[in-house]
């Protein structure tokens, strides 16, 4: 390059050449790669994020199965089959609650500055992180369903009416639900930059959302005021769709409603997160 060309021009030409080697998908992919590598290097965290769901799967389903069988007519499946969708939602919410922690850690350590000062879109950073979260949630759901399937070998009655295809759909639903819900955790994280607050807000919402939904019991068995609330609770739509897939079959209305509900609250919560993300340094 000749010296009489202005410096800025020289630099721009150079970077434009380099630009060809990656676009927005490369950016997202790199952020996702980083999150997943971190995840696989802390297997303890992975284990404990599955620990609670498994306790529910094994213990709660046992503890309440008698109550359940006495409450309704004799059914061809156990309570665990009713609870299983709820457990997948709970796992997704739990992982979503933690989504903001990584954000706070990166802001505090200064690693986020590395992303912000690089010539990438800010949205790529958020998208890459959410993609990694989604993959993680899908995998967790897959593991839970797999363990549930193994339990059927020991006499637990879980129909798995839609088989492997249904399982994949539940994994997708759980991932989508989790990513949508991550918006809340990330918004709080970005606004407060405090792990404790992030944890408190997300955790304190988890149980009300679960119990005021159809995640743990079918709608007919809920008190009427809870029924009313459950109709505006996105958790219910996710749980209903997953429950249908496990107990009866492909209920496309329920599945469609679930994705619509997830889309709606996902746009709101992640919209807030994007705004909070854009506001960094402003």
């Amino acid at each position, binding site marked *: 390059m000749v010296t009489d060309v202005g410096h800025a021009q020289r630099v721009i030409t150079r970077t434009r050449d380099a630009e060809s080697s990656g676009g927005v998908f490369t950016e997202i992919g790199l952020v996702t790669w980083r999150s997943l590598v971190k995840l696989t290097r802390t297997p303890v965290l992975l284990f404990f994020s599955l620990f609670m769901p498994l306790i529910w799967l094994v213990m709660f389903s046992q503890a309440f199965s008698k109550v359940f069988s006495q409450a309704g007519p004799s059914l061809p499946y156990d309570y665990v089959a009713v609870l299983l969708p709820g457990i997948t939602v709970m796992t997704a919410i739990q992982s979503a609650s933690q989504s903001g922690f990584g954000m706070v850690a990166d802001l505090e350590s200064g690693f986020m500055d590395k992303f912000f*000062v690089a010539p990438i879109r800010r949205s790529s950073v958020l998208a890459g992180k959410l993609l990694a979260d989604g993959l993680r949630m899908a995998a967790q759901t897959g593991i839970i369903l797999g363990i549930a399937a193994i339990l059927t070998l020991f006499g637990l009655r879980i129909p798995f009416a839609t088989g492997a295809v249904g399982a994949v759909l539940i994994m997708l639903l759980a991932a989508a639900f989790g990513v949508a819900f991550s918006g809340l955790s990330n918004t709080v994280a970005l606004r407060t930059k405090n792990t404790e607050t992030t944890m408190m807000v997300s955790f304190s919402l988890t149980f009300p959302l679960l119990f005021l939904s159809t995640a743990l019991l079918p709608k007919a068995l809920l008190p009427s005021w809870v029924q009313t609330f459950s109709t505006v609770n996105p958790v219910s739509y996710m749980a209903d769709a997953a429950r249908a897939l496990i107990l009866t079959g492909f209920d496309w209305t329920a599945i469609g409603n679930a994705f619509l509900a997830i889309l709606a609250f996902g746009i709101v919560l992640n919209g807030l997160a994007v705004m909070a993300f854009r506001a960094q340094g402003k």
Partner: protein
Amino acid sequence: MSEAATSRPDGKRKAAPPRSSKDSVIDVRHLVKVYGGRGQEEIKAVNDVSFSVGEGEFFGFLGPNGAGKTTVIRIITTLLAKTSGSVSVAGLDVEKDGAEIRRIIGYTGQSIGVDGELTGRENLWLIGRLYHMPNSLVDERVEELLEVLQLKDAADRRAYTYSGGMRRRLDLGAGLVHHPRILFLDEPTTGLDPQTRVAVWEYLRRLHREENMTIFLTTQYMEEADQLCQRIAIIDLGKIVAEGSPAQLKAAIGADIITVRIARDEAFEQSRSRALEIARTIPGVSRATIFDEGVAAYTADGGGTLLEVLRRLDAEKVPVHQVALAHPTLDEVFLQHTGRQMRVEEVKPMSRSFGRRRR
């Protein structure tokens, strides 16, 4: 540095650009940054700061904690929005052309932004790829940097196992993978042991000398600014109080300095005023000023005048705590411009119950 290390991401060797103070690459005019507002108390962190940095210059911002150094560097590197004023980098406006600016600058922040779960090599690789460099070129650059920064042996260890010095070097490397034209360093040696500090200085000198990189550094160490920078601006309480080469700034004082620290008792204020009066009457003292701990007297003949100062103060029973004679250093420059001694406070990173090792 090796032949390969000077190669640009486009594979071409860069020609040495003409060094002239006329082509300024950083231009800051009347920069103001106000934090807070909207119900909160407003804090003017940067108050009408103007300066420029020439192509290939090693420029330093010297000042104590809270002077506004980090705020300025974050505004120039597009990490923080300004309140008013104009800031341009390589002729590009920070507000309008942020993306273009980010391509040509490197930045190493005050806190070490290294991902502890990734290895040293992975950290550098990730940053390189984020700059849209082709894979092969990134690999090449990463190997070079690991070599130069002496991290080769630890390259495949996770960064949380690194010592403070190693992490600082890795962090510095992350700012250099894409071979920036302008490098911004925010207190690059704060918290480092003296040995590592000297090693980092040596590397920065090489970058500047051999690659003609423009370097903008902030520091609270007088010695660092003196050792490295061709030109410095002293910043205090959000304002630039002096600017020039270290030699110029020291020459402006033009004399030896006798600092007399007064005993800290109830009568401190009176003793200090008394000492100032006395100092001003001593022949050979060209100028005397007070500072927070005592009195500073400027003189052409430090050795001779020191004795006289001591004798007079003793005769007048001024409780002298300590006396020092110094040839002008940046410490004295700072003292002269701010009326305070510069104190270096080592800031420990805040610890919260969820540390950086957790996710």
